[in-house]
């Protein structure tokens, strides 16, 4: 008897998971088209309340769609318009929950064997099949422990083994590293990467940590308020963020404006102080025309106590609104006609006597800016 669900190989060109998730929860509406080919790991990234958990619950069958469809391996799991609905226990979908939800009354081995037993294997056979999975996550000698005797990182690995053991066509991971401390997270992330790469099915990783997404995923889907705001590979997204949230994730200053050659007229930032009513112009390295984004790194912003002299630059006067540690440097938020983050050394900060409220001049070389079309 096999304990795994039969997953027919998908026809060429058809993604393993093909879904349009439309769901309502109170006043919140999720509308997310999502397709994942076999073997691909997609990271779903978004701020709190953006619909990440709703997405996981809809795919797992814990929350019915209000419209749209979920097709997995050629089978329709949920399609309200056709009155199609598959119960969670009949879906070839497994979930690694944020706090793992290991069954506290079962041993580690029986936790991993749980799904196999539910799919028809007898007690002994299920344990036999579960052992290699436990070994694969390096916890063979913990088989007889109870979950409460495990560390956070070990519990995470057991949860992963429990989910992978049923050979799911779709593996869902809901913030799998969020409950771990920084050091454990580093080790577990590397190990998780190994297992996700080996998983033949589709994988959706939900996270709010950009590092998890960049390390673990082949492709990133970023949602805000229930909708996709940006989608693509890590390199594209880190180089060309399209919303403030994404820019903050990847640590860039981001502005939207109207380009005319090497000059971009910015939209006034909502939080901008004095001079916001006057259009602010940035000189850029790239030539564009029309609606564009302009991005530059905080380290590219130089701060001066007086108006700097010299080569043509983007220079503006502003007020320091906050100073925070950022790695070895300090990150200074400067309000003005545009708001910008600047990374400077502690020595420079001491020299400038920077405190919130200080008046400074900010400068960015045109060569440090990147400009790309805003598109739709």
């Amino acid at each position, binding site marked *: 008897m096999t304990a795994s669900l039969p997953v027919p190989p998908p026809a060429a060109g058809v993604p393993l998971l093909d879904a349009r998730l439309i769901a309502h929860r109170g006043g919140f509406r999720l509308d997310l088209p999502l397709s994942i080919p076999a073997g691909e790991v997609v990271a779903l990234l978004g701020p709190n309340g953006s619909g990440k958990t709703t997405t996981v619950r809809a795919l797992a069958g814990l929350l019915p769609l209000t419209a749209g469809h979920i097709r997995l391996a050629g089978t329709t799991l949920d399609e309200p318009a056709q009155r199609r609905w598959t119960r969670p226990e009949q879906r070839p979908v497994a979930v690694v929950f944020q706090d793992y939800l290991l*069954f506290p009354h079962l041993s580690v081995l029986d936790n991993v064997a*749980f799904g196999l037993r539910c799919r028809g294997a007898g007690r002994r056979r299920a344990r036999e099949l579960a052992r290699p999975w436990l070994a694969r996550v390096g916890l063979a000698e913990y088989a007889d422990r109870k979950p409460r005797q495990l560390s956070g990182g070990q519990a995470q690995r057991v949860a992963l083994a429990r989910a992978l053991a049923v050979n799911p066509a779709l593996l869902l991971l809901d913030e799998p590293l969020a409950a771990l401390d920084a050091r454990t997270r580093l080790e577990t992330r590397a190990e998780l990467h190994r297992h996700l790469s080996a998983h033949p099915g589709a994988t959706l990783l939900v996270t709010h940590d950009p590092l998890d997404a960049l390390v673990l995923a082949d492709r990133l889907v970023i949602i805000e308020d229930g909708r996709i705001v940006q989608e693509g590979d890590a390199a594209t997204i880190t180089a060309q963020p399209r919303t403030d949230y994404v820019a903050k994730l990847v640590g860039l200053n981001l502005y939207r404006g109207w380009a005319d050659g090497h000059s971009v007229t910015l939209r006034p930032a909502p939080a901008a102080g004095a001079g916001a009513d006057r259009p602010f112009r940035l000189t850029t390295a790239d030539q564009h025309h029309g609606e564009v984004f302009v991005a530059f790194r905080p380290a590219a912003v130089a701060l001066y106590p007086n108006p700097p002299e010299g080569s043509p630059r983007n220079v503006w006067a502003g007020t320091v609104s906050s100073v925070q540690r950022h790695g070895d440097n300090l990150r200074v938020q400067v309000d003005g006609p545009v708001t910008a983050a600047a990374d400077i050394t502690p020595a420079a900060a001491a020299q400038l006597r920077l405190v919130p409220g200080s008046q400074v001049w900010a400068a960015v070389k045109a060569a440090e800016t990147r400009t790309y079309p805003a598109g739709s």
Partner: protein
Amino acid sequence: MSVLEDQGPPRRTGRPPARRRGTGSGVPLALVVPALLGLGFLVLPLAGLLIRTPWSSLPARLAAPGVVEALRLSLFAATAATVLCLLLGVPLAWLLARVDFPGSGLVRALVTVPLVLPPVVGGVALLLVFGRRGIIGVWLESAFGLTIPFTTLAVILAEAFVAMPFLVIAVEGALRGADRRYEEAAATLGAGRWTAFRRVTVPQVGPGIAAGAVLAWARALGEFGATITFAGNFPGRTQTMPLAVYLALETDVDAAIVLSLILLVVSVVILASLRRRWINAP
């Protein structure tokens, strides 16, 4: 570090700062006196029972055939009633806790009726349904030749009738307090609702089920009114300990005291085990 500098946040280890200025400061006399009176009111009758116990003739009385018979019947009937309560009450509690159906509020109210109903009324009601002329009783007799009233089965039914609400309420409370996400995790692993109930929910609410069962068992053990109405008072068949106590009181007070002492000991043992359950419950 000097004592004067030590004004950081209060330390979490060690004892809280002593604030005693004379014993009982802040406890009003108007509460202490009735509290002590209440305690005495509860404890004195039990003490009286112990004081009046004929300790010298105790072993002989315990071995008396009627006593052993009544105790055996009581323990058997209470246990059987508890099993019946578990078989029917746990699913009922699950239904009330997990399924939204029209009229669930009414059902919940109905379940608790036996809690407030005088047991004698419960006995009369059982007679009207299961009696030889009762709605179900007539059918049972004609179809199976089964007569329930004034049998040991009647004792079990009467006890289950009064004890079931205790179990249902305890288990429903435990189910509502249990984290439902474990059931969801089980579902994503392929467990249907029955499997999830059996392998995840029941172990999760195990302490609640145990507490409910113990409460139901204790209530069944002490049942008097419904039993004597529905099952009568036949030694060896339907005469349980409480009935034997009542009967003995009219002829042999010492015998009644001994029987009462046994019930008291059993109750205290149950209470002690229950307290441990509650304290250990996660």
